[in-house]
């Protein structure tokens, strides 16, 4: 693993099966600091499973995952987050008895001990104040201000996705993994999301985005990695996707022209 230090995220030969279903066979790819990588692939190709393996929500059967120089494939999910990887879920579900702002504030995990809370220590009050200011700012940025005080479960699917992104950004992670962030999000909001993600990237955040919307990918991603039946079949710039034979084969079974890919999928 001599190269691991050069990459922010390095995935080497990761395999994962559910029973007899070999979802990830031999997945290897690297992400450099500052990149925005699109993770593409047909439905069921294992994109969400790959994110789950990276973030510790599923145990890998084999292979290695490293964040910088640190191996993380055996760590528990909450430890991986603390090392600087945040994520969102494809189908986020949100609590019924907590408001949007409170969920966002919960994403700041500093100072949540029993005694600290009981005594109201200065460090805790500061953490609370910072969490609130930050949550307000991110909620405003992702246009959730009108629903700030609603129960988080009352949001629409698209708004829940945005709240998931707010939560992921609260901890100032180095690397953020977004699972289909624009699915269900209103087109007008999509533009704001593109802007917000680019801004965060300019500030140094590295992003891996699972996405089906080609326009979004072209606007945002600097590189695309294509997953098909549990293997990486391509890694190229977004504008080279349509002419990549293996990508076309992955999506259309090889029977269609590049134009078809442009028009239909991904």
């Amino acid at each position, binding site marked *: 693993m001599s190269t691991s230090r050069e990459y922010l995220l390095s995935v080497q030969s990761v395999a994962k099966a559910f029973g007899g279903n070999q979802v990830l066979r031999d997945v290897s790819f690297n992400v450099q600091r500052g990149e925005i990588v699109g993770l593409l692939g047909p439905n069921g190709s294992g994109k969400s499973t790959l994110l789950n393996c990276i*973030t510790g929500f599923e145990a890998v059967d084999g292979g290695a995952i490293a964040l910088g120089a640190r191996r993380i494939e055996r760590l528990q999910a909450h430890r991986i*987050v603390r090392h600087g990887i945040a994520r969102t*879920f494809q189908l986020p*579900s949100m609590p019924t008895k907590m408001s949007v702002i409170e969920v966002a504030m*919960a994403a700041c995990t500093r100072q949540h001990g029993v005694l600290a809370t*009981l005594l109201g220590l200065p460090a805790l009050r500061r*953490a609370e104040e910072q969490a609130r200011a930050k949550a307000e700012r991110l909620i405003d940025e992702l246009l959730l201000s009108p629903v700030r005080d609603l129960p988080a479960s009352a949001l629409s699917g698209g708004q829940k996705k945005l709240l998931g992104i707010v*939560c992921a950004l609260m901890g100032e992670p180095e690397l953020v993994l977004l699972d289909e962030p624009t699915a269900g999000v209103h087109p007008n909001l999509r533009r704001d999301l593109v802007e917000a993600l680019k801004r965060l990237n300019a500030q140094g955040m590295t992003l891996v985005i699972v996405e089906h919307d080609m326009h979004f990918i072209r606007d945002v991603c600097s590189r695309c990695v294509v997953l098909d039946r549990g293997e990486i079949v391509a890694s190229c710039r977004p504008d080279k996707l349509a002419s990549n034979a293996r990508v076309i084969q992955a999506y259309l079974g090889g029977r269609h022209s590049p134009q078809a890919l442009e028009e239909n999928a991904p």
Partner: protein
Amino acid sequence: MFDFLVSALTFASLYGLMALGLNLQAGYGGLLNFGHIAFAGLGAYGTGIAVQAGYSPWLGMAFGVLLAMGLGGCVARLGRKLASDYWGIATLAIAEILRVVATNEGWLTGGAQGIGAIPTLFDGVAFLLMMLALLGIATLLCQRLADGRFGRALRLMREEPQLAACMGYDLTSLKSRAIMASAALTAIAGSLYAHFMSYVGPDYLLASETFLLWTMLMIGGLGNLRGVLLGVFLVQAAYSLVPFAKDYLGFDSDLAGALRLGLIGAILLACLMWRSEGLIPEKVRKIA
């Protein structure tokens, strides 16, 4: 009549403390602890054993609290790999094991006779006033915990454990801290119970006591302190009123005992059918 009222209120505040403890786990943490009474039992036996051995009752209370917190830590770790309903059954089993131990290890616990002659600390009204003050303080502390950063993490874990984990919360540690805080509060209540009755016996550890506490929470409203206190009051009132009705209407004691349980069962059923979240449901907290 006055004495009766004082004692009824004292019982209510003792159960109130235990119910607040259970609410920390069940209301905020969503932890189905069906052996909660074990913590009160350890508090009571800690006091009884210390007093019997000639130590100060306060030392006994501290001993009981430490025992309960230790048990709480173990129970939380035990549950790490169990689904929540299986964990609930495990806690029920643990409380039963403790009761059997208390019944059989006569050299330590006085066996089925229990331990008597525990000093009452204060008499009648003074004890009640102390209890009411304690209940008030405990309520304020629980409120602070629930609305503050710890409670927020706990409530998120209750509803969306996956989201909580992906924010970086260590769910096992959250659980064990909630259970240990709850155990400490409940053990204090158990210790005071032993003082009030000046006796501790294995009957304190009956599973029905845990279910009584659960009934209070379910009637009043899990996760809402006003609801919890209302539930405690209602159940305790039903308990205390039946003996009155007995004298007034002239039916015998067996019937009165059955009526008591029947009445509480009916209230619980009515709540479950028409107010499934309790009389005062938990609300979304306002953040200004």
